[in-house]
């Protein structure tokens, strides 16, 4: 079972939910796929055993073989190759590797076989554990624009024998989709403010589009209005948990201390939420 934790708006409590759910269950693997700003390790404090680079392939052109036919430029949809032909065997060719998506078309179509792909590091995947909890995270290198290939590398660590919990990045575009794709269920975390609701609606549209069953956790549930709850009821989206604002919870979070460590009553709440998700996923699978 793979459960991802997402939200349109940032800072609603994704990491809090992912970490505390992971710590409330047995036989769990937690993946931090918010690779631009990974934070789950601050709460888990894992022992990392392995650190692997994540690469995308980028082209390098061997100008001794190149005849400046410009085929590579023509097949590149991302304008990552600049090329001009100035004479029979002369010209200029340049690669802008920051624009490259690593599709490999240029190398394949080069008639002179003058293009070799080399690996460019975009970030690292770290793997470790805390007790029996397996933990992996990705960290994007500063100044790198493209996180989805790194997110895919983190997800290669998925162990199907475990309950897998994925901490997703905020937003509604490629990084989120890459992170939540393939999940059996997605928990959307929101806050009951107009910002929270606006972004929750967007996140629900994303999950509807890619067809992942979902429920909502309302965090700081007493700071704002009741519109998020009304929206969920109208859309028939289950509200899985409500967490009221509590200075003690905010303080624990600020220090990197997981909620379930200090407030035992939440252990049972998270387990209950997991049971409910399990039931819903079963129902859906049997229904299909």
């Amino acid at each position, binding site marked *: 079972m793979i459960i991802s934790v997402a939200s*349109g*708006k*940032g*800072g*609603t409590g994704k*990491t809090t939910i992912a970490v505390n759910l992971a710590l409330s269950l047995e036989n769990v693997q937690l993946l931090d796929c918010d690779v*631009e*700003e990974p*934070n789950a390790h*601050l709460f888990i404090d894992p022992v990392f055993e392995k650190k692997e680079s994540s690469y995308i392939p980028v082209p390098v052109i061997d100008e001794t073989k190149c005849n400046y036919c410009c085929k590579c430029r023509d*097949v590149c*949809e*991302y304008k990552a190759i600049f090329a001009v032909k100035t004479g029979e065997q002369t010209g200029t060719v340049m690669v802008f590797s920051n624009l490259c*998506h*690593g*599709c*490999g*078309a240029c190398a*394949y*179509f080069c008639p002179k076989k003058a293009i070799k792909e080399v690996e460019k590091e975009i970030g690292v995947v770290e793997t470790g554990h805390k007790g029996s909890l397996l933990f992996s995270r990705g960290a*994007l290198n*500063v*100044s*790198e*624009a*493209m*996180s989805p290939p790194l997110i895919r590398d983190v997800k290669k660590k998925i162990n199907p024998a475990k309950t897998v919990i994925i901490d997703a*990045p*905020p*937003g*509604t*575009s*490629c*990084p989120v*989709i890459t992170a939540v*794709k393939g999940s059996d269920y997605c928990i959307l975390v929101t*806050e009951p*403010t*107009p*910002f929270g609701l*606006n*972004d929750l609606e*967007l*996140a629900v*549209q*994303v999950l509807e*589009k*890619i067809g992942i069953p979902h429920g909502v956790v309302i965090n700081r549930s007493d*700071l*704002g*209005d009741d519109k998020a709850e009304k929206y969920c009821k109208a859309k028939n989206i289950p509200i899985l948990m409500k967490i009221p604002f509590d*200075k003690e919870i*905010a*303080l624990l*979070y*600020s*220090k*990197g201390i997981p909620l379930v460590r200090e407030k035992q009553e939440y252990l049972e709440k998270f387990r209950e939420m997991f049971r409910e998700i399990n039931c819903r996923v079963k129902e859906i699978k049997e229904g299909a």
Partner: protein
Amino acid sequence: MLSVALKQILVISGKGGTGKTVVTGAFAALAKNKVMVDCDVDAADLHLLLQPVVKERHIFKSGKTAVIDKKTCTECGECIAVCRFGAIKPGFVVENYSCEGCAFCANLCPAKAIEMRENVAGEWFISETRFGPLVHAKLGVAEENSGKLVAKIRQAAKELAQNKNSDYVIIDGPPGIGCPVIASLSGVDLAVVVTEPTLSGLHDAQRVMETASYFKVPVYFIVNKYDLNPEMTLKIEDFCKEKGVPMIGRIPFDKSVVNSMVAGKTIIEHVKGRTKEELVNIWEKIKQ
């Protein structure tokens, strides 16, 4: 008369939900003669405070998606073999949200059965608000290329500001450090990092500061809800001193800020006392 150069000021945070949009809203209310831009195109919220009236609406086309013509397709499987994004599913159906639009398959297909169609990836708007013009956008659900949409609206806002002889462009940034953040940082005069006194807030602020420095953009820091953990606020202040980054304000935790969001107003209009005073002071420091 002395002509003052246009100043572009970006509000970012790394971590989501630290208060970027609320701070940007306050600047919108305080600054004279400016244009506002919401660059969080994934999950835009600034419009909820500024309540814009749309004056111009533009389609944002970006990227392409492969479309396979079933009648021409011979199911040879070459497209599946070369696609590095796993976008062509059994039955030769393209999974739209996985396709990166590289056109490798279309260029390769021996039957010429694959066409690349341009995506309508979103919309962008020039609007009028009670504080002046706002340029904002809506990325289509589960679409990519948010960086390009950010670049587009940044350009539109800059042109508008130049035509109107504005003094400032005030930019609400996206969370994270990836593609849309890099597009937001391009060519700005100052990045104001809004952080919170938590381990995650500090961790993420460091990464976003490194990103801004990499692109040679000067940075100021603000700590929001600083009194939720005064000890962590001190740590952030030490960090700023060590890095030589000016810390220009500490905004207290104030429940009436949530009420102002619910009312669709900025802090300057709706909140009294220290919170408002602090934001007035912060803006004075930025103006200098």
